[in-house]
């Protein structure tokens, strides 16, 4: 009898095991994001006993490489997180599948998600959804500003230049402290393209992002202004603090950088610093001048692995729905500090009035999400244009014209 019972228990156990669907979720390794996702997975599994979610993470720098190599072998993620700018390259090579219509209603998504999230579509088809969106703002070290006699952050670029110059300290030919953390490879290439070009009265691209239009006078003025921070005003230098995230390290840890432009995703880490800090909307050229910002997001998408069998596809779709639901967005805001991607949550007045989230939320109203075709390549062309000016002494006009021609080739080749 005892044996029979054991056998029965084993059989029941096996059949329960067989009914369970396991899906794999991939994202890059970032402590708060991993933590938030673990909490979401626990909630999801509790609500869906038949589904198990395994989270696997990789260092940011090797993340795309893991994806590139694993999926063709039928391994790895069923649901993967990707930067929206990578979507075109991933989609072209078949690494993501369209959101299945039986689980996702396109019209509903259009209505529920912030307008910026439209960039998760390719040719009108939804390929994924974000939990959070991000925009840029100016972080500043309030102690440093106060020590120099400034009790408020800059509202205009003129004030920004003045404060940054006042906070720059040199010893002989070498900088000891800089007013601004120059980071063309960080967020500054977006700052030039989507913020400064527009503030100077231009547009970086045609409305459908098929033509590069920044190589006009407005664009040249924008690049001149930005590179002047190094070449004319001298309150910053390239690679002031060496390393992967030098501008952040200098601001947060070494405390030798007074101001940086960074995304809302940096909030979680900046909160840990030991000095008084603040964050403010990106400066404008003059009071009531044109405001602009760069909006972006990481999205969650289904891979071809998820489409291998219907049970898996259903589980993966359910999980994707859950991690992009309003509840998940609230948790993500608390744990990671990133702004919710849904229209209803982002329009919460309390959020817009928050001293930390406020500047980012308000910026979403006037933010543009560049429609990339090859984010890496397009980033490199702007970074090279900036480097041409500050490292090689090329005129901003020539550098920008070369960049525009090169970027246009990328746009043409990938459409």
């Amino acid at each position, binding site marked *: 009898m005892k044996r029979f019972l054991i056998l029965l228990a084993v059989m029941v156990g096996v059949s329960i095991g067989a009914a369970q669907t396991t899906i794999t979720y991939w994202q890059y390794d970032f402590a708060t994001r991993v933590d938030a996702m673990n909490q979401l997975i626990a909630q999801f599994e509790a609500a869906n006993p038949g589904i198990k979610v395994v989270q696997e993470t990789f260092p940011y*720098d090797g993340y*795309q*490489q893991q994806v*590139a*190599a694993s*999926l*063709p072998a039928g391994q790895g993620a069923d649901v993967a997180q990707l930067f929206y700018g990578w979507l075109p*390259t*991933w989609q*072209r*090579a*078949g*690494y993501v599948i369209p959101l299945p219509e039986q689980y996702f209603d396109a019209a509903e998504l259009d209505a529920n998600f912030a307008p910026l999230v439209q960039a998760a579509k390719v040719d009108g088809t939804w390929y994924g959804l974000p939990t959070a969106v991000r925009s840029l703002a100016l972080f500043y070290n309030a102690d440093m500003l106060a020590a120099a006699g400034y009790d408020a952050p800059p509202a205009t670029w003129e004030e920004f230049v003045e404060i940054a110059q006042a906070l720059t300290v040199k010893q*002989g*030919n*070498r*900088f*000891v402290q800089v007013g601004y953390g120059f*980071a*063309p*490879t*960080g967020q500054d290439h977006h700052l030039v393209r989507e913020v400064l070009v527009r503030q100077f009265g231009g547009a970086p691209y045609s409305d459908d992002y098929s033509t590069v239009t920044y190589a006009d006078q407005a664009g040249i003025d924008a690049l001149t202004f930005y590179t002047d921070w190094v070449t004319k005003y001298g309150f910053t*230098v*390239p*690679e*002031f*603090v*060496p*390393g*992967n*995230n*030098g501008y952040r390290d200098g601001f947060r840890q070494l405390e030798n950088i007074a101001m940086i432009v960074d995304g809302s995703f940096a909030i979680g880490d900046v909160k840990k610093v030991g000095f008084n800090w603040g964050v403010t909307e990106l400066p404008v050229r003059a009071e009531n001048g044109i405001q602009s910002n760069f909006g972006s997001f990481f999205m969650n998408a289904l891979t*071809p692995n998820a489409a291998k069998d219907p049970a898996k596809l259903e589980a993966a779709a359910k999980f994707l729905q859950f991690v992009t639901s309003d509840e998940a967005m609230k948790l993500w805001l608390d744990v990671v500090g990133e702004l919710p991607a849904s229209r209803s949550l982002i329009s919460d007045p309390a959020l817009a009035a928050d001293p930390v989230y406020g500047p980012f939320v308000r910026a979403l109203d006037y933010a543009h999400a560049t429609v990339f075709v*090859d984010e*890496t*390549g397009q980033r*490199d062309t702007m*970074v*090279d244009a900036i*480097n*041409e000016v500050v*490292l*090689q002494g090329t005129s901003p006009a020539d550098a920008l014209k070369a960049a525009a021609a090169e970027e246009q080739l990328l746009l043409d080749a990938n459409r």
Partner: protein
Amino acid sequence: MRSSHGAPRRRRLSLTTREALWAYAFLLVPLAFFLFFRLWPAVQSLKLSFFTWHVDPEQRNFIGLQYYREMYANFAAKGDLFKALRNMLYYFLLVVFGQVSIGMISAVLLNSITWFKGLFRAIYFAPYVTPAAAVAWVWGWMYSVNFGIFNKFLSDWSDFVTNLGLPWLAIDPQPFLTSPKQALIAVAAVVIWQQLGFQVVIFLAGLQGIPRPMQEAASIDGANGWQRFWHITFPLLNPVIVFSLIISTISTLQMFDQVQNINFTDQGGPLGSTLTIALYMYEQAFQKFRIGYAAAVTVLLFAIILVITLVQLKVTQRKVEY
């Protein structure tokens, strides 16, 4: 193999044949490894270079030589491939010559010391076993314009000579990795420094093979240290030099880690001045998901390494007998 009376007599293999068979049997394992994990992927990557890339093999379209034409166009327009190939030439000249010559000289010197022999050898070998990422990170800080030890030294030096009333001897802080002109040389120096230990070991091994009586005889005949090196050590080291040259050439042509890590946010920069073929290939494959094009680049890299190695073998290998 036993044979006994009454059993049909089998043909006996000679001892040498049997030994050879055993040797082949054991060699089969590495051979299989080589075939499956080296040669087969190489053939596969040749095949990939003729197809567009897609996760689903059914959707990979044959496009013939299009990627090769694209490589040519990129090269002709002085794009990134051109920069990578140009940089490879500079790396080759700097790194290979630097490694082999400094490695040989260090080995000869290390071979002639008697005190702390082991310690010195360990010190020279240590960089070789340090991970490239750690090396790149530390050197990145040393090269830092504002915080690096090199510019600290230059600025102290400038203060010193200025105080002496010799300001014309002062040297400005250098941009190093942030200068498109200096970055490649700076990276090459790191690679030479890191690979030196390996070269030293190779040359030390080679030096052990040079008969001591020959050196002693030359000494008695009145040859000085330089003459002994130039007329005895150097010619007899020729096979080692050839080996070291080829190994360092191949590793230089495949350079990746150091370049990728030393300027992480602008890999191969600034302005493509440190880009290598391997890094270019990596960016195409794993940042742009253009695996077909990247495969075509690996085929090019393979062809380059093959040709250079064959030329080196032809030019440098000569028998030296005394």
